[in-house]
């Protein structure tokens, strides 16, 4: 199909053997894969395909019409390779056979990728309103995978879950640690993956031994999953990352599912996991404080710096920075943003500033305090509040939009939008929900909308977010 080393290929498929095989095929050709979430508005994927100058998109037929239209609106359409479905690999085989009949592929030597060649580009929420692509090299992925080998001692009898979507960096552990050790990878469909009642029997029946996901689904299983019925499971490690796991739910989970070891993994997409912490075997009942994000992984270096760029002393808060082979190559086509996020020190070492504020505790563990900016995690997904505002501004009735996040025990975080309008007629709650769902990924749709005649401002005329936080 003409894919060369260094090209980028989009993949828009539901989780399936076809999707995984497609990804391995792309890597084997020496190209980088750009996973596209089938559940977001087609416009977003169209933007990514264009922005990343993708030469080809391998996709399921059901997504073709919408995506083709969006890509065409922006310019040239790359080659589309479509499967009529996904599942056990038949669709991919069928599509390849049809293609081979038209033009038999030449026998070529598998190109050897260099460590710094791109393996994938993962797009995450951008504060400008457009998602940004994190460029991950082979070395970025393998340095992380090797750390997993050292830390979790996987073996060929392990059965890894593949719960995270393929556009999430959690999938790097699932796909590549499993294959490195000749272990099995058990694909969890999107429907089952959201269902706290169907997951526990699935995990037990499939004899999954290593589970990796964001905390939210684990918390739901702990509360509603009737886990006591499925205590005969094969789990030996439960790994979670992406957001804070409320201790209440973690304790309940561990009490009902006590055989595996539990690990809190921390790291932004830009570095993958860079610190980790093993949860104690029994969580004291009085504990309410979230657990630390722990200590640096062996393959990276961590510094915690203040605003002047100096290392902070123990007990003081600072911004967590990461260096080493895990650090991304940069943001695709965004040299200025990359330069702001990745600083080079005097010895030439590249440090990624995570924007996460931490404190070092008495045991030398990093403890997450909050963000430097307006980014929050929702169900493990990164959400730039500014991106939601940009979308709201597209609504004709919206003159001003300010979005805040408020901590919530049950949901983790609630997103509230404050709006002021041009005309008298204000859209209803449902209309706003619909508008947001059509313009943003579903996890970015605000929970609340409040209309004001005007939004409060600070002395410099900017929206006073602090005041909005204290509104009830």
């Amino acid at each position: 199909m003409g894919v060369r080393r260094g090209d980028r290929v989009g993949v828009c498929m539901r989780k399936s053997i076809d999707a995984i095989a497609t990804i391995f095929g792309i890597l084997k050709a020496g190209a980088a894969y750009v996973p596209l979430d089938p559940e977001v508005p087609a416009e977003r994927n169209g933007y990514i395909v264009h922005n990343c100058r993708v030469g080809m998109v391998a996709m399921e037929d059901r997504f073709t019409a919408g995506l083709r239209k969006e890509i065409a609106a922006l310019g040239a359409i790359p080659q589309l390779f479509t499967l009529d479905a996904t599942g056990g690999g038949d669709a991919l085989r069928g599509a390849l056979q049809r293609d081979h009949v038209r033009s038999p592929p030449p026998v070529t030597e598998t190109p050897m990728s260099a460590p710094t060649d791109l393996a994938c580009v993962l797009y995450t929420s951008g504060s400008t309103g457009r998602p940004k692509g994190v460029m991950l090299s082979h070395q970025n992925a393998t340095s992380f995978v090797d750390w997993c080998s050292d830390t979790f001692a996987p073996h060929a009898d392990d059965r890894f879950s593949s719960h995270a979507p393929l556009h999430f960096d959690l999938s790097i552990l699932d796909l590549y640690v499993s294959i490195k050790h000749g272990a099995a990878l058990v694909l969890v469909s999107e429907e089952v993956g959201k269902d706290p009642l169907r997951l526990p029997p699935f995990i037990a029946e499939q004899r999954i031994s290593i589970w990796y996901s964001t905390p939210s689904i684990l918390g739901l299983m702990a509360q509603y999953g009737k886990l006591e019925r499925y205590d005969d499971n094969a789990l030996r490690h439960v790994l979670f990352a992406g957001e804070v796991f409320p201790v209440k739910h973690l304790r309940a989970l561990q009490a009902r599912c006590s055989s595996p070891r539990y690990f809190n993994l921390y790291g932004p997409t830009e570095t993958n996991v860079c610190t980790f912490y093993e949860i104690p075997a029994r969580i004291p009942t009085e504990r309410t404080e979230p657990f630390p994000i722990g200590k640096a992984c062996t393959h990276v270096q961590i510094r915690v710096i203040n605003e002047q760029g100096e290392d902070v002393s123990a007990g003081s808060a600072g911004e967590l920075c990461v260096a080493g082979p895990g650090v991304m190559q940069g943001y695709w086509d965004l040299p200025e943003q990359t330069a702001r996020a990745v600083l080079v020190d005097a010895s030439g070492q590249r440090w990624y500033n995570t924007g996460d504020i931490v404190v070092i505790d008495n045991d030398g563990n990093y403890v997450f305090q909050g963000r430097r900016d307006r980014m929050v995690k929702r169900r493990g997904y990164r959400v730039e509040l500014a991106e939601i505002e940009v979308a709201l501004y597209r609504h004709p009735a919206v003159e001003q939009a300010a979005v805040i996040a408020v901590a919530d025990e049950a949901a983790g975080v609630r997103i509230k939008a404050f709006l002021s309008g041009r005309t008298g007629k204000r859209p209803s709650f449902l209309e706003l929900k619909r508008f947001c769902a059509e313009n943003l990924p579903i996890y970015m749709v605000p929970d609340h909308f409040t209309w004001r005649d005007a939004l409060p401002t600070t002395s410099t005329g900017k929206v006073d977010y602090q005041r909005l936080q204290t509104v009830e």
Partner: protein
Amino acid sequence: MSVAEKVLDILARIAETNEIQEDRDVPLFEWAVLDSLKAVELMIALSEEFGVEISPAEFERDLWATPNRIVAYVQSRLSA
């Protein structure tokens, strides 16, 4: 209060809007009015109100997609 009214009341509370009582064909999941967490809360609340066990295992997005369909589902479970 009829079954329909009770169901819509509970749904309005969990969805945090009374608008679903007027607009009964709203695609609740497509428009992010309900998510997986709220769906589970809804089923538990309905189970408690009507004394039937409505388990999240019965949940299918198509069957529960709109306020009308939810009412219809509960009614069918009660008459079964």
